[in-house]
């Protein structure tokens, strides 16, 4: 029979949720196994880096790359797989925009190492030992990858052809994309334009969210445990932060339906440069404080109070998009969060 297209799936700094979600397409995984020759798919088949290094350039048809670029090994693998693959897909929020690991961009490499290896109640490290990229032990030398200061998204180290957002991408969406790919590779079906985001909607999560939405005027922000939200009503207008309005649909609005605000894992919409800034603008705009003619000082004071009830704007608005945000990382000196 004709040679099957080659599929690879690799993870960098990730949690494995992408693999689990992929496995959650259920028996369809057998279809994938059927259609593709697995060129590198540590999740369900045994290949090794050496094999990949041996492949001719572009040998792999589709490489699903998940995980952020956290250390030198991640980056080296990204370069290798880019070189060997026709299509590289940033799979999941980490590869797409940094995801949770990129919250690390609010702090520094040094602060992280100090916290993990020096000061916590269970540590026993009198010699103040830190992991080293090279360590000479009695029998020889041991090496480790270099831990970066800044977490990067995949397309910040290599060109990326497609993006599949989500933390993790929902199984239905993964399958939908795989179907398109299969159809393209086997029947010459159409592929989406290069650089586009696949396996997601074109509108914000609110469109998928069944909760009732009204004109908003937020008097203060509430933490999830501050109140029991009124059922069936938009969480945001009840003062519970929800990233839905600034987040791409595709997940089915699962979190709001579990009475928890969206955190934006499907990333920004087309035409948005910075998801966090956009949500910040939207949410601040509908704070019902201040009106023409009010005393300026009073207004500023009240606004400060209300806005400060929204704790941790950076960690909330950029929960998943930090690495891809305009500023990308915080300006930090020494140990500070």
């Amino acid at each position, binding site marked *: 029979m004709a040679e099957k297209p080659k599929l690879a799936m690799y*993870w960098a700094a*990730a*949690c*494995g*949720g992408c*693999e689990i979600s992929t496995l*959650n397409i*259920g*028996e369809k995984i057998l279809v994938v196994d059927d259609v593709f020759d697995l060129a590198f798919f*540590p*999740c369900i088949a*045994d*290949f*090794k880096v*050496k094999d990949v290094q041996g492949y001719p350039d572009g040998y792999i048809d589709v490489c699903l790359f998940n*995980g952020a670029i*956290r*250390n030198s*090994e991640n980056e080296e693998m990204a370069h290798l797989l880019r070189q060997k693959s026709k299509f590289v897909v940033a799979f999941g929020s980490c590869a797409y925009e940094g*995801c*949770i*690991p990129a919250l*690390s961009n*609010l*702090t520094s490499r040094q602060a*992280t190492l100090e*916290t*993990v*290896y020096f000061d*916590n*109640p*269970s*540590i*026993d490290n009198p010699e103040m*030992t830190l*992991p*080293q990229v090279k360590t000479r*032990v*009695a*029998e*020889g030398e*041991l090496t*480790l*990858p270099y831990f970066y200061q800044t977490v990067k998204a995949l397309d910040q180290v290599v060109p990326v052809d497609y993006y599949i957002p989500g*933390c*993790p991408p929902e199984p239905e969406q993964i399958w939908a994309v795989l179907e398109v790919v299969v159809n393209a590779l086997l029947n010459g079906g159409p592929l989406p334009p290069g650089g586009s985001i696949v396996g997601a909607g074109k509108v914000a999560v609110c469109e998928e969210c069944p909760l009732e939405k009204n004109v908003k005027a937020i008097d203060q922000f509430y*933490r*999830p*445990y*501050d109140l*029991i939200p009124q059922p069936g009503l938009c969480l945001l207008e009840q003062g519970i932060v929800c990233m839905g309005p600034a987040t791409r649909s595709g997940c089915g609005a*699962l*979190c709001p339906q*579990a009475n*928890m605000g969206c*955190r934006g894992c499907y990333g920004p919409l087309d035409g948005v440069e910075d998801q966090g800034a956009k949500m910040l603008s939207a949410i601040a705009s509908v704070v019902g404080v201040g009106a023409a003619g009010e005393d300026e000082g009073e207004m500023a004071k009240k606004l400060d109070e209300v806005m400060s009830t929204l*704790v*941790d704007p*950076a960690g909330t608005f950029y929960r998943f998009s930090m690495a891809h945000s305009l500023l990308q990382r915080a300006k930090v000196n020494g140990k500070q*969060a």
Partner: protein
Amino acid sequence: MQRITIDPITRLEGHGKIEIFLDDAGEVANAYLQIPELRGFEQFCVGRPAEEMPRITNRICGVCPEAHHMAATKALDALYHVEPSSAVKKLREFFYSAFYVTDHTTHFYALGGPDFVLGPDAPAAERNILGVVHKVGLEIGKAVIDTRMRNHHVIKQVGGRGVHPVAGMPGGWSKAISEEERQEFEAIARKNVDFALFSLKVFDDIVLANQAYVDLILSDAFTHRTYYMGTVDSNNKVNFYDGLIRVVDPQGKEFVKYPSRDYAKHVAERVEPWSYLKFPYLKGVGWKGFVDGPESGVYCATPLSRLNASDGMATPLAQEAFERFYQTLGSQQVNGRYQPVHQRLATHWARLVELLYAAERMLELVTDPEITDPNVRVVVKNTPDEGVGSVEAPRGTLTHHYWTDERGILTGVNLIVGTTNNNAPITMSVKKAAQHLIHNGTVITEGLLNRVEMAFRNYDPCMSCATHSLPGQMPLEVVIRDPDGNVIEHLSQYT
């Protein structure tokens, strides 16, 4: 000096690299387990609102996000000084049991199982979940997939999402379940019990019926006499969700039993420059290096450990399986408690005993009238300060420790995750296996290397958890270098 590099180890969840050094005589001089990944949650969570931790720390591991979600949620209970209602506790434990069913199923059939079902010497290309399916039959393969799917369905319904749940809140749970859901879940729980019993039978038929395997399990190559840790309920029975942490010594005598908030009094972590993963040990015994025995603070926290640390299982069928487990492996009872089983490969069996317990527990809870109580969410007004929460993750005791300011903004975070507990024992197991199996002139074969890996794999180490790297399996690769580091032989498994 020769050097064998196993990078990365296959069918382990997360990055890992084994370095084996041979002396000039070709004997194993030393072995190192290296973890190349770090993500630094302890630092970047500082500054976040505490209540977000169940939704942030579950990203430590996509394989067991439920464990981190639950440990974080319990840490919030403590942090905000709020005792969940019994309905909430039951709902959480039900959710958590469903997770155990999927996770143990996945490991036994996809990760650990192949070594036994197909045998350590079977071609590696077959030695995976698909191979298992072919060997034991497609309908069983389907049953495995079904079990994962139906329990993931429960997780999604109760936890809000399929992977990375969102429902955990201080003192509560963000949504209740309806009677319709309960009925559906009850049916699922019943199926789970049948499936667990069936899996134990598979183990009987394929492993215990095969003397070669039994010998392998009992062989000294896979034996370590360490301390064992596990969470137990008020009757010293195994519990995954809540209870006291109990440690027994290599003779099975209770060494200490403490509430998780005291973890730092009993456990300390060492740092080695050649791994990003720390090495915990028992403070009360002290660190004596990578050695076992009562003098060494090295302890182990796995399904086997939990059984060793407990007086039994809290559900009837699981208790039967528990008895049979110890009797079959020749453990004697000393004042009412079975002596610990030290053969690491027995962990796979222990895991099935736990699978049965999880399934039975699920059924108990889903038939409890309280389970559909609509009032699972509470308004919290208390001022937060510090809180510790722990659960038994499938791969060991998982502890989250938070400090906040009075607004509930995190000022400190400490995490000791399941696999980390086993960092030292794994290293020792690998070294010991290597020492038994690799001798001067031994031609390293794939099966042999796989046995080295099995020493590792039985811990079901999840390096996603431990290092916040990624899970999955990658091929075993062996490089033999002369003392100058030149490659004199390059073997690899699946060529």
